[in-house]
């Protein structure tokens, strides 16, 4: 959806606006309309109701730091998610608390054996989500950012690299490593919990 080849694209249409010129109010209004909804959803999945404040703060910080935005270096979307990720770093404790809650949520593990095959698929899916929530807690913050910017915000590796200011090769290697770890560790826990019955 985003063209990464254009280094000088400064129009709104390809999400690389020129923020050094006039009409900032209109441009930021368009940025808000285009990005605020998915951004809010991303923030809410990470830190719950704090997203209500953070979504506005992201755009205000973007406006204040607009001189740091270079349309040749990345899309506005990458830039905004980078700012939002920085803001999230102040709320890691809240995020971890939320993930712990998600790991414990809705229906105890001990109850599963009572449900037969009828609901097995559903149980497995929601059980996996809980196990994964617990595993996300143990990730390093930088790894969690790369994973969730990719999975929840839908950024590709280039955009994640732009957002976090790290090389795209590092994004790919981190993503690969963290996914491999989650596939192995989260399922280990799964085995144990079912084995504990």
């Amino acid at each position, binding site marked *: 959806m985003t063209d990464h080849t254009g280094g000088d694209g400064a129009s709104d249409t390809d999400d690389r606006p020129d923020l050094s010129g*006039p009409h900032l*109010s209109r441009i930021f209004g368009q940025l808000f309309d285009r990005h605020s909804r998915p951004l809010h959803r991303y923030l809410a999945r990470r830190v719950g109701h704090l*997203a209500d404040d953070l979504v506005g703060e992201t755009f205000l910080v973007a*406006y204040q730091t607009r001189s740091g935005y270079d349309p040749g270096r990345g899309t506005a979307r990458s830039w905004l998610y980078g*700012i939002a990720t920085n803001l999230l770093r102040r709320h890691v404790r809240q995020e*971890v608390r939320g993930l712990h809650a998600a790991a414990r949520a809705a229906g105890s593990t001990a109850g599963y054996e009572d449900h037969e095959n009828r609901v097995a698929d559903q149980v497995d899916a929601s059980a*996996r989500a809980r196990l994964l929530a617990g595993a996300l807690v143990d990730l*390093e913050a930088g790894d969690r950012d790369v994973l969730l910017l990719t999975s929840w915000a839908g950024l590709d590796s280039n955009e994640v690299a732009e*957002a976090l200011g790290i090389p795209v090769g590092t994004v790919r*290697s981190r993503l690969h490593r963290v996914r491999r770890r989650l596939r192995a560790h989260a399922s280990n826990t799964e085995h144990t919990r079912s084995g504990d019955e």
Partner: protein
Amino acid sequence: MSDDNIRRVWTEDELDAALEAVNADVRTDEQVLARARAALMITTEQGETQVTTTQEPEVATAVEPRPRRSARRWVAAAAAVGVLVAGALIAQTLPFRGKAPATAEAVATLDRAAAQAIGAVDEPVGPGQYRYIATHAWWMATHDMGDEKFALLAENLMETWAPANEQDEWMLRRDVTGNRQWVIGTEEEAKAAGAETEGGWPEGEWRAKCGDFYSDVKCQNEGSWQIPTAAWQAGLPTDPDALFERLQADAPDNDRGGIELLVYAADALRSGLITKDVRANIYKALAKVPGLQVTDGQANLGGRIGIALGVDDGDRRQDVIVDPATGQFIGERQVMTDDVDGFKAGTVMQFTSVTTGVVDAIGVKPAG
């Protein structure tokens, strides 16, 4: 759990499905967005009418260029590697691409280990006996509290009893031993900050035919680098070039260079189930892994000394540690090669050592 979805490692699709499901039930209140938009418009319109100078950024934007790290990484990696021949140092400048061949020193080490492995004797497991495999895994637990971060390595002991006949019952015992090494911060500081540092890994005892502890379906696994059944080992190519191609075909294709090949080989070697001939062939195949080099001539893994062979992906290095004098696989480790997320270059992020023996009964440890 009632179907075959329980398995040792989730598929990529299962992970994606779980990711989609976590915290998926959020909703966006239109009024929240309307208020945020109004606040933004007030700020931007004031900016336009007052012709103010741009405010100093209160928060550094993430697109600010970070300091170039290649020079520092290069120095750190060289320091970790120690004395190397000049040719190896030149190869060192390409850790990302991993296109450089394994160094001569690494190849020589593996050749020696392979020769010794071939000459070794796998201690036979007689009828009614069990191969005992003790895996001491030190894994990192990280507690990120926002402004403070804590990390510790905790020892997990996994003991496996594998019967002479693979189809019989196996046993797995997992224990978080309580042995710890604090890597960032101290226990007191972590407690004071409210971090929960207890638990984290499964403990208990499991029994299953064919060693299928992680699946409801028993004895159907055709084997893999992660679950190296006897049949799977028997089906591996015996020619080192062909085995290397097999490793390339099986390991995920990504831009981590040769590191993924090393990880897959380590998965198999760590199992403690690889026979000496296959072990020798794996060593020979590893000699073909791009970017492989001797990273430590005296690697100490929980008291056992060996030679570490590693590949660096720019953030981290994966090492396998072998004893070339005996051909034994001692273990593996991951070491930071750059300062990332509060971990300094040189920090050992995890390490695993493996010992094996033969015992007469399930659940019994070898004498001594």
